[in-house]
């Protein structure tokens, strides 16, 4: 091996590399591997209405896995561990099965994987289906799915899998490691693979986590018995013990929650020898931008300008690579509201998904109101006057309806005038 050095990996989106821990000098027998989890290939992204956009997100998850090949080659990684949820579903279709096998096969090095809560190893699981076994043999001979909690001893390392063998497992899948299995060679690093939440840290609130079902009690594992505990399930990246890490998903698949949530990374782990502290390095791999803009205040044209520049900052001129969750509130004139609507029209087209929550008051300006109420068209002006009166009503529903109607009337009149 070469001299120790700090490797800097360019991320897919960000220019800046993220380095979590410096690497230590490596002894001759050191091993170096890639830790990832929660690939969730085949995730339907069903909340997106546009089928092509859904497909775009699905394809990206595969592309991200494929993109790991160059990294593995560049860094001469020995193997890859995937800590559960390779598939999004326990019953993936054949296309998805073939695609995953092909992507993992392209990584060349051995890939050790355990089933997670999404793709558990229970009865009828995908891992035992004839089609999967055939595709694995032909496309991904390097893939080894560990379905039983028993040590896998290689010449250079020991893998200790904690697979989820059922759809619902109420116990700790790592319980079998609470006393180190007998007869393990003590001259090579031991790597635990597990899927689930940990003490004091769980993916509570995540819609598809295995929360509360398979709790991994890290504290009960004997100290010094294992060198690295590779965890999956939580989609953010997080160190949860001296030797325990969640890698998170390599491709972000939902809107982030909180600042500590850092999805879209893989971890490169290097262990010099049995007992040595592992060196862990994160690399951003996510290609899709998930933007969350909450509590944006828009008042008048100035507010709209500000919103426009925020969106510009987040997405630039990209199209088809971002998802936006936008929550706006404030008050706009009728014209301002029309502008806001056209902005949203663009945003909706450019993004893969726009989840908009707008609490906007469309208050007509005095000129707008005058233009509607003081005109020669007796019906329009009478109705506008009536609506303007109602929009100040105490009953919020009445007032809201009146405002909407006023806005609609404004649009209709404007359209009529434009035509004539």
């Amino acid at each position, binding site marked *: 091996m070469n001299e120790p050095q700090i490797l800097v990996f360019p991320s897919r989106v960000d220019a800046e590399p993220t380095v979590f821990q410096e690497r230590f000098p490596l002894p001759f027998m050191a091993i170096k591997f890639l830790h990832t989890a929660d690939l969730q290939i085949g995730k339907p992204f069903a909340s997106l209405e546009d089928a092509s956009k859904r497909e775009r997100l699905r394809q990206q998850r595969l592309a991200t896995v494929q993109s790991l090949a160059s990294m593995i080659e560049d860094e001469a990684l020995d193997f890859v561990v995937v800590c559960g949820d390779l598939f999004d579903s326990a*019953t993936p279709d054949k296309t998805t099965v073939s695609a995953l096998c092909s992507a993992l096969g392209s990584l060349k090095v051995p890939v050790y994987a355990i089933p997670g809560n999404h793709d558990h190893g229970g009865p009828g699981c995908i891992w035992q289906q004839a089609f999967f076994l055939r595709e694995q043999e032909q496309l991904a001979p390097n893939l080894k799915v560990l379905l039983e909690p028993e040590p896998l001893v290689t010449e250079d390392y020991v893998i200790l899998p904690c697979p989820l063998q059922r759809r619902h497992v109420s116990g700790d899948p790592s319980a079998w490691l609470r006393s180190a299995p007998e007869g393990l060679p003590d001259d090579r690093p031991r790597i635990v693979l597990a899927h689930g939440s940990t003490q004091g840290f769980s993916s509570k609130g995540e819609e598809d986590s295995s929360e509360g079902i398979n709790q991994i009690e890290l504290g009960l594992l004997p100290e010094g018995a294992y060198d690295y505990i590779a965890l999956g399930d939580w989609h953010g990246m997080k160190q949860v013990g001296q030797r325990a890490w969640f890698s998170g998903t390599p491709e972000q698949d939902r809107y982030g929650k909180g600042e500590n949530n850092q999805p879209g990374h893989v971890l490169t782990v290097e262990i010099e020898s049995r007992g040595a502290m592992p060196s862990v390095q994160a690399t951003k791999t996510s290609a899709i931008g998930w933007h969350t803009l909450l509590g944006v205040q828009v008042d008048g044209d100035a507010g709209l300008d500000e919103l426009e520049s925020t969106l510009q900052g987040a997405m630039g001129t990209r199209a088809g690579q971002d998802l936006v969750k936008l929550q706006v509130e404030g008050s706009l004139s009728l014209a301002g509201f029309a502008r806001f609507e056209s902005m949203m029209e663009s945003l909706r087209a450019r993004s893969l998904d726009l989840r908009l929550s707008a609490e906007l008051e469309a208050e007509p300006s005095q000129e707008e109101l005058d233009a509607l109420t003081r005109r020669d068209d007796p019906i*329009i002006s009478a109705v506008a006057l009536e609506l303007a009166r109602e929009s100040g009503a105490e009953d919020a529903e009445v007032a809201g309806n009146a405002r909407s109607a006023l806005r*609609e009337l404004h649009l209709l009149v404007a359209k009529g005038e434009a035509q004539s």
Partner: protein
Amino acid sequence: MKLLFAHIENYRVHRELKVDLDESLNLIQGPNESGKSTLVEAVHRALFLKAKGTSELHRAMESSHGGEPKVTLEFDARGNRYHLEKTFGSKGTTVLSASGMSQLTGGEAEAELSSILGVDGVVAGRGAASTLPNRWAHLWVWQGQSSNSPLEGLSERAGDLRDKLQAQSGTDLLSSAQDGQVIDALSGICAQTYTSTGKLKSGSELHRVSEALESAHEQYAEKQEKVNALHQAADDFERASSDLQRHGQSLENSQKQLKEVASKLKLVEQSRSELKDKSQAKQEAETQLKSLESADQDIRKLDDRLKQLQAEGEPMAKRLDEQSREFEEQKLGLEAAIKQRTESNECLNYKRLEVDVWRAQLSILKEEKRLAEFEKRLEKIQQLREKQRELERKLAPLNPFSASAIKKLRLLESQLRDAKAELKAYGLKIEVLSSDQAVKLGNKALDTGSVETLNESAELHVGDGVNIRLTPGGARNLREAQDALAQAQDHFDTALKTLAVAGMDEAEESFQKKENGERELKSLEAALKDSDPEGAEQGRQQAENAISTAQARRDALAKDLKEFAVESDEAQIEVKLSELEASLNVMQSEYKERNARELALRQSVEAAEKQLQVLKQSQEQHLAQERELGVELKVKRDQSGDAEQRAQQINRLRARFDQAAEAEKAQLEALQRLGPEQLEMDQKRFTSSLERDQQHLEAARDRKIAAETRLQSSGLSDPEAELAEAQARCEQLEQRYERLNAKAELHRNLLERMQGKQRQATQALAKPLEAAVRPYLQMLFGDGKIQLVWSEDGSRLEQFSIERGTLGSGTYGFENLSHGAREQVALAFRLAVAELLAADHDRCLPMVLDDAFTHSDRARIEKIKTLLYRGSQQGLQLIVLSCHPENYQSLGGQEIGIA
């Protein structure tokens, strides 16, 4: 504007017609074809049609009288009196003049006229025929159009009317073009979503989304079911696996247990077999002991019994002996008694024979006596019969003198007497009391005091001069009486002759003789009957029979008697019989006594014999018993030995039995220690558990295979992903539906609001006109109102309906009214409109009503007259045309006749 004068020349039927019109109310009357309508047409053309022209209209005006059609009008307008002259045709001219105004001609005149009349230029050129009727159509009701909707006539004046009404109502909220555009746009948008009845339109986006949502829900349920089925299969698989394991373990355990139980059971089997042997040995010893003990017992009992029998035998033999002797003695006594009784019986029988013989003899004697009596009676009867025959012979000739013959004869005699008497009554008695002259009857002279009876006519002569013919009873009756007498005599004689008698007395005598003879015969017959000849004959026969029977009996019985001599003396026999009977009685009582003794002895002997038999039998039985016992005892002793031998053998057998019992008890205890029942139960239990486990295992294996099959993925789709997609699709569609629905509702509400405003405006516009019509309707119907609807832009009146107070409830469209009601309501409306529009014409406008009330009855025409009068009072000039002037009496207007 008021029409004052019209002068028509060469216009159709009219060569020349001049009419002065009243300023307010005119009735132009004339018969059909008189040219009333032509007159008002000429006036209308003069006002509105360009004079110069060659159109069809112009040609139609031409008259057969020749010359150009010319109309001259005078009218008041704008405070002036105008004079208008129009000559129609290719060289047509128009001249309009008024005081204080220079005369106008041609186009200028036409233009000025249009301006005065408030119309949009004179009607000319092409299309004139269709435009002309619209001119003042609200004021001009042509013949035959009175029941048309009055709205039709408003086409040209609707704008004026609206302006007037708007000014009156203060409403200026009528739609603008822009309003209309927005409303149209909104209607268009709403029409995409809703049908005209406000229902969701199929094919609209909202409808499509709603349907898609429904199908998405179905899809979701379907996918959910698929996933559930997979989960169920996985659960089944796990359960089956766990069952396999559990029952597998149970099976193994049962097998192991069974093996252990089986080896223990083998020991039990062995022990049982030994126990059986030992029990058998014990039983054998017991049997032998018991049999010997019982034999010993039997021998002792038999011995005792035999001794007892022997002791009982002696008294029994002694008793039998005694009884035998007694029986022989009694038997001898009985034989002696039988002999005595037999002797007594023989004596008795002989005595009875003697009695019977003598009784028979006595009976013979008695019967012979009876026989003699019967023979004597029979002799007497013979004498009576001879006497009877003698009498009958004597009576035979008197037969004709029957009672009826005599009666008839008597009648004839009396008739003869009567005839004689009648004839005698007809006689005339003549008695000469005194006479001074000779009286002669016929030739016979009658002296004083002489009496003569005349039976036939005779002449009575008194003196010489007096001759009197006397005819008794009238000649005729006398003769009849004489004839009757002759006839009666004749009949009577004939009857006597028949009876061969001379006279009545002889006949009476013969009749009497016959009567007496018959009486005597009757008494003879009675005597004969009393002596019963048949009974006497019978009695004689019986007596003879009895005698012979008794003789036979006597002779038969007498044969057995030692001696018997016939005795004929009854008394002797009686004595003998009484002696014999006394002796018989004595003998009978002796016999009875002996018989009783014999019977008593016989019974005693029989009883003794019976007892003897009993004793004999009893002794025989006793002896047999004794013999049997002896034999049995001997056999037993031969078998079991004597008493001592038996005692020794019993002791030996008892010791052997005790030993065997001890051995059996020990073996049983050993067997109980092995717990055989428990072991057998265990074996049963484990076997059945084994079977059940095998069944369970088989079932679990089947279930596992079935679940595995269900879990085999086709891989064609991902059910979980599809479920997530289906759910998301439901949510998206729900949101979309909400959005679309809210938007559609928004549009609909906005449209309703705008249309509502429009309606308000047009309703307000209709009000003043509705109010103006109301007083006229009240006159017509007592109450009522009309409802008018303006088009949304106020360009025309679109609907006209009416509500009549007293006549039917509800609101009717104008077109739904009857013809009569239509022309009445139309008049009311026209008057009201004319009133309103008159404001621009010096508060006066003419209205022409040509035959406008043909559908109204008289009563209604009375009301119409009131309406017309009110109209005239409001300033209108009314010109009514009719061929029925009588309908318009007291209209209060000027009447103009056209010939």
